[in-house]
């Protein structure tokens, strides 16, 4: 067993295989709530614990996949580029909405964490919970927080956002498709955007635009907070 798991191939094969199977199951069953990332993570952790395989063995191959985070972050420029006309058209509304969203994300995590008595490491790890995963990981590193906790909080945020969006936006009487899409993308990134796609074309475009703009704004705000010594 040791000989099989202590290789690069083990981690890569396990990750590719699971992601493929879960994505296939998602398409076959048309269950949109199925999250291949979250399910793969849970199943891999279960396999490692149950089969008593050391985490380091999985990471031999895992780190190869992990090293693609750089290029994955770089290509996030493409959806932003594709929505450039929409961005120019609604620049003031987008700027206002995103700044309100990013400020409330950071302040609410810090405030709520202190109310609920979370330790500092946990608080820092939750700060980028509304940011798209590759940039969320960068923010987590900037804050010297824990990547693993940040990622789990990002996925859970996406699922929450996609579930509550129709009800919450109705309750707040939000009627404009630009406001709907922007708020979904800014709060619950790509996972929430799946819900925005069901709502309509403008909602979908605004949501995918909001992902990049909100993420970059968060990075900027965190840099300012750190340079000023506020956090």
């Amino acid at each position, binding site marked *: 067993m040791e000989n099989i798991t202590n290789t690069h191939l083990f981690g890569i094969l396990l990750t590719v295989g699971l992601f493929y199977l879960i994505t296939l199951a998602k398409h076959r069953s048309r269950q949109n709530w199925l999250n291949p990332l979250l399910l793969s993570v849970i199943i891999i952790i279960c396999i490692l614990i149950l089969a008593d395989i050391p985490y380091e063995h999985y990471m031999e191959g895992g780190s190869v996949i992990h090293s693609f985070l750089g290029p994955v972050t770089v290509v996030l420029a493409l959806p932003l580029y594709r929505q450039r006309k929409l961005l120019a058209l609604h620049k003031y509304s987008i700027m206002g909405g995103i700044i309100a969203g990013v400020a409330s994300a950071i302040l609410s995590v810090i405030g709520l964490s202190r109310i609920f008595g979370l330790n500092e490491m946990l608080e820092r790890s939750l700060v980028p919970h509304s940011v798209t995963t590759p940039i969320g990981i960068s923010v987590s590193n900037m804050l010297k927080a824990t990547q693993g906790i940040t990622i789990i909080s990002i996925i859970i945020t996406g699922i929450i956002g996609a579930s509550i969006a129709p009800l919450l936006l109705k309750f707040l009487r939000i009627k404009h498709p*630009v406001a709907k899409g922007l708020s979904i993308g*800014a*709060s619950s990134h790509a996972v929430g955007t799946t819900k925005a796609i069901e709502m309509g074309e403008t909602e979908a475009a605004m949501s995918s635009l909001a992902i990049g703009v909100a993420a970059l704004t968060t990075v900027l705000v965190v840099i300012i907070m750190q340079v000023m010594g506020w956090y």
Partner: protein
Amino acid sequence: MKIFKQLFIILSINLAGDLISRYLHLPLPGPITGMLLLLVLLLTGVLKERQIRDTADFMLQNMGFFFIPAGVSVMISYQALKGFYLESFLVVLISTILVMSATALTTQLFINLNEKKNGKHN
């Protein structure tokens, strides 16, 4: 061959971003500098969308795959969560509601103000 060529371009931009961040001592993480660099190259027309499209879309559509190892790393850092599972979930839940509400209400306010202003001109 197309995929390799596109991957080569994307990785080169990634490397350029890392080098710029490191040697200019930017507080911006390398990959994000790379992302901004790619955006500038696309906007200025130096790089055409079709020169990276296929590889970039593959990565974007299957983004979750690349985060699996980072997600699995929660198994060595779960100690920080111990005893705070429910509290952490509540922080994320309430914060998500607040972010969505703040963004939606502010954007709607800006749009309404804009429409009112344009209305007066007509």
